[in-house]
């Protein structure tokens, strides 16, 4: 049931484009469109390779409010949910 609801939620949202890393499903690929956060974090993410225009693949979302794991180029990054919810992506079909 939860999975179904999740999927519907995404379908309704993808219609008007911008989701965050949270809504992405494991295995999906998307392009970073915007990082909605303070200057410090934007720079930190930038220095780790997360910039608008970058393609990312979601690998996993750990249970119990755990981090989101994404693959970017050739390496994996784990991001806390707070940060992941501020990274907007355009999900590829």
């Amino acid at each position: 049931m939860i999975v179904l609801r999740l999927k519907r939620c995404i379908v309704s949202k993808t219609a008007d484009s911008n989701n965050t890393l949270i809504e992405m499903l494991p295995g999906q690929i998307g392009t970073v469109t915007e990082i909605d956060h303070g200057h410090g974090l934007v720079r930190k993410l930038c220095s780790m390779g997360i910039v608008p225009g970058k393609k990312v693949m979601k690998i996993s979302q750990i249970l119990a409010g755990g981090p989101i794991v994404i693959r970017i180029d050739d390496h994996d990054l784990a991001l806390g949910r707070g940060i992941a919810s501020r990274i907007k992506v355009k999900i590829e079909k």
Partner: protein
Amino acid sequence: MKKIVLAGNPNVGKSVFFTRLSGIYAVSSNYPGTTVEISRSQISREGEKFELIDAPGTYALESDAEAERIAGKLIDEADIVVNVIDAGNLERNLYLTFELLEKKKPMIIALNMWDEVQRRGVKIDIPSLSKILGIPVIPVVATTGEGMKKLLHALDQAQVPTLVPGSHQERWQEIGQVIQAVQSFSYKKPTWVDRLKEATLLPVSGFLIGLVVLYGVFWIVRFIGEGLINYILDPFFYRFYYPFLLILDRYFSFSPFLRTILIGHLVEGKIDFEQSLGLLSTGIYVELGVVLPYIISFYFILGLLEDTGYLPRLAVLLDGFFHRIGLHGYAIVPTLLGLGCNVPGIMSTRILESKTERFIISVLISIAVPCASQQALIFGVLGKYGTLPVMFVYFILLLVWIILGFILKYSIKGYRPALILEIPPYRFPYWKTLIPKLWLRVKGFLKEALPIVSLGILAVNLLFMTDLFPYIAQAVGPFFQKYLGLPSEVSLVLVLGFLRKDIAMGLLAPLQLTVKQLIISAVMLAMFFPCVATFMVILKELGAKKLIQGIIIMLFASTLTGLLLNLVL
């Protein structure tokens, strides 16, 4: 003497690189941020001497983070900067490179892990990269030493770059151009090995694998630790060291005071390694005979987990859980270590970023994580009543750990950085780095912990010569009878628990307590005051103020738990 500073992202193999060039061992692991202290060394090339400095790994230079500030300062003082780059993550690594270029220092790039890149089918056009950046680029494999000679010779060609500084946005566009010009990816299909690697990060399979690994770790640590104690250390201490102490004992009979300090008090006419409290008896035995074997076995397993690259994955899996009590997933390491011995557990909190985190986990370890000797005595005292009472004590401690964590999270303010963690690829552990690392850590423990624990034992020994302990016990005895349902003698046992919890537990046996009383005593003993060794390590790592805060929390938490248990059971 010219200063060469190694700069680069975390986990690009800078420490291995440093080792290769200098011959000195620097701790390296397959996870980011191993270099907290700065390693320095002298190297010579054809008679010319250089000072080599390994800066902490950073993603950027202009930031508030401690590691990045230190790295920035070191680079300002450098004569030549060697930017070590993970060739497999060229794009991300180049961000730091551009910041380094702006420092206008003679610079050279070491493109590390060149072999891995070639295996994975990534092509990098080195001449073009070198031309665009305006500095020499040398491919190297630090783990095998390939290309290092060439790099040493290229030091002379280090050039001050001539790049126009720009904004971060512009910089990324530039990097994009460099990458497009030099690097072409050829993607591979995921193999079953890739899928297995990913399984350690997926929600369900990841937790299952994590449980198996944790169980295995725990089992192996006990196996090695107990093996060392039973077959090597105890035979040594009882067969060879004991007779030696007896000779010393006779030798020092001219000065009773000196004898008490060095050999300690006799227990039933004999020297007791655990209770005599002499610097040479208990002091040596507790550190080398009890704590050291677990240090060796834990650091060995930890090294294995680090070098394979599993540790960051475990940290990611547990992060959600630990987050609820204000910590990061990495807090699993001190907690695991603490289950063997609280001393290395608290020492290992250094891997956590903020002081607040270190305080929270240190308090949690010393209160609610029973060390091996505490566990042995929980079993010893309650084991004959079946597994249920034993399990119950563990359950209570876990509950205390969770509740206390919650309370600490909301009552202590402080900097808690959000999780951004790079997950390194799996690598095969390498004996040549594993064993020196183990040795370096064991040596570090001996050098740091031995003197302070000895000092603590000396202090307790001196206190014992006064009547302070029985006096305290007498003062709190009525409280024990009235509110905790325990005979007043138990208060003395608890106070004695400061020395060594297992001795205290042993003292409970002749008191003929009921199961309920034993459970309450066991829980309180585990929570109450850390042993003297842990006490001293907290003092050293976090300072007197934090130690006193911790002790107040301990006294409060253990008394409250005892009260509640007495009411509920």
